[in-house]
């Protein structure tokens, strides 16, 4: 059953496959994004996240499968979809020669925004960019350009906001500002689809995350559910050279792994880790609850380790 236009499912993908020659970028991917949700697409570089996002508005043509965005097929009715979405692409692609306002006026025209002046001023104010309205794009800092790209995506007050690695390369202040904007956007009932490499970002923003690897969905659920299912408990992080000392004190049910130059032990309770410290005489560098990054590394990262 395919959802009809204006359904409560914003994105409905059934067995979507995309091949680039020999390479299979998406392999029978099925997923749904309900209206009003914030869904995160996670996965290593080359997992198919951006390819999938491109499929949603017709800049990538899927090879097989069925895909509907607001009930419309992007291969045939891309314009209907694009009238209802706002996209923050990986690259800002702003016109460097133009001023902030000139640039936004053009995009307001592209998107058929009514009363563009008011809308632009409103959003520049919202993103703390009003004082830069006459500045040339090339004179803006990276964080300002990114904020302006958000302004551009929000001009038409879209129902679905698509964010492709929205905060990569930004300083923490800008990142927090953008998170705040995305959260407030969600509060008014809008839908958000975000790809990110920052697990903290996904945990903070997303109701649900989908982890992709090699174009296949490997896990789906709320961040909390996934942590409880895949990597429950607490993680103690130790110096790598203490590995042998620690090993004799470990319970066979605990999960132990190397992370860079650190040796990590995941135990069901924090008390287990405290006891481990006491028994071995080795102090942990850090002890923390398991998080989405542990899930991510378990599902996608260990494989990389094996191959290397």
């Amino acid at each position: 059953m395919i959802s009809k236009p204006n359904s409560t499912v914003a994105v409905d993908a059934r067995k979507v496959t995309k091949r680039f020659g020999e390479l299979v970028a998406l392999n029978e991917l099925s997923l749904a994004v309900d209206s009003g949700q914030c869904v995160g697409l996670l996965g290593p570089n080359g997992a198919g996240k951006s390819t999938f996002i491109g499929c949603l508005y017709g800049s990538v043509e899927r090879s097989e499968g069925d895909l509907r965005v607001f009930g419309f097929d992007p291969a045939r009715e891309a314009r209907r979809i694009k009238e209802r979405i706002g996209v923050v692409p990986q690259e800002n692609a702003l016109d460097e020669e133009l001023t902030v306002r000139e640039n936004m006026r053009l995009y307001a025209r592209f998107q058929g925004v009514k009363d563009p002046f008011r809308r632009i001023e409103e959003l520049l104010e919202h993103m703390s960019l009003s004082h830069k309205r006459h500045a040339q794009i090339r004179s803006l800092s990276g964080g300002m350009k990114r904020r302006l790209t958000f302004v551009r995506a929000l001009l038409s007050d879209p129902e679905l906001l698509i964010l492709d690695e929205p905060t990569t390369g930004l300083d923490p202040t800008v990142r927090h500002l953008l998170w705040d904007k995305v959260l407030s956007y969600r509060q008014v009932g809008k839908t958000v689809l975000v790809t990110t490499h920052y697990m903290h970002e996904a945990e903070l923003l997303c109701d649900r995350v989908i982890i992709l690897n090699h174009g296949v969905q490997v896990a789906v659920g709320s961040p909390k559910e996934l942590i409880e299912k895949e990597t429950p408990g607490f993680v103690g992080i130790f110096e790598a050279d203490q590995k042998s000392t620690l090993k004799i004190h470990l319970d066979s049910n605990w999960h132990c792994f190397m992370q860079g130059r650190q040796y990590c032990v995941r135990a069901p309770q924090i008390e287990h880790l405290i006891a481990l410290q006491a028994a071995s005489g080795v102090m942990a560098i850090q002890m923390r609850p398991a998080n989405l990054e542990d899930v991510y590394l378990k599902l996608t990262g260990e494989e990389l380790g094996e191959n290397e």
Partner: protein
Amino acid sequence: MSDLLGSVRLAWSVVVRNWVVYRKDFIANISPTLADPALMLTALGMGLSPFISSIHGLSYSQYLAPGMAATTVLFTAFFECSYGFYVRMTFESVFKAMLTTPIGTGEVVLGEFIWVSIRAALMAGGVGIVLELLSLLPNPWAVFLFPLIGAMLAIPCGAIGLLASSYVRNINQFQTVYSFIIAPLYFISGTFFPLNDRPVLGALVQVSPFFHGVSLLQMAAWNQFSPERIAYHLSVMLSYALILGLWSLARIRKKLIN
């Protein structure tokens, strides 16, 4: 129908975008297209005219005049759709953002064609006025026909540029396209010397879309209209516009959509 109107509206917004960027550097953008024909007319027209008695009853400067308008159209359209479009597509990633809006690849290409047609019409009109002031147009009314013919001729010339943009692997390869396609069109399309008494060249040049535009401009400038010749040159030029236009659309679509 509303879809088609919507497409035209969106294509027009691409034109507006190009204009907004173009006017930022207006003098630098407009000068080469005006300087080239002016130099050509000075060097060849004034320089060579005294040595050439007359061609079909025209002075050499008068012979050259319509070709200068044609040249402006060729260069305006080709360079805008080759270097200009390629830079927008690759280095500036303009379309990556534009295609997330309701604008599609069809509107991008249609917008480029409207944009170069308008520019070519204005440039051909501008050159026409200068030629008129220099009394180089036996038919003074030609100045009104130049923009019209220029606008149509810009489509096949621009399409060659878009096709080049879709085939080149880096920006330097446009030089090859210029040397092997544009320069021959420019030099051997009846712009600089008549082809009537050269059977081989005269037959070969019929495949050049540029030649047919040059012929129409010459007919206008020299007041040498014949319904059959107008119909022939116009239909070939418009057929080229359609075929090359659709071909370039298919190529650019492939380039912009993965």
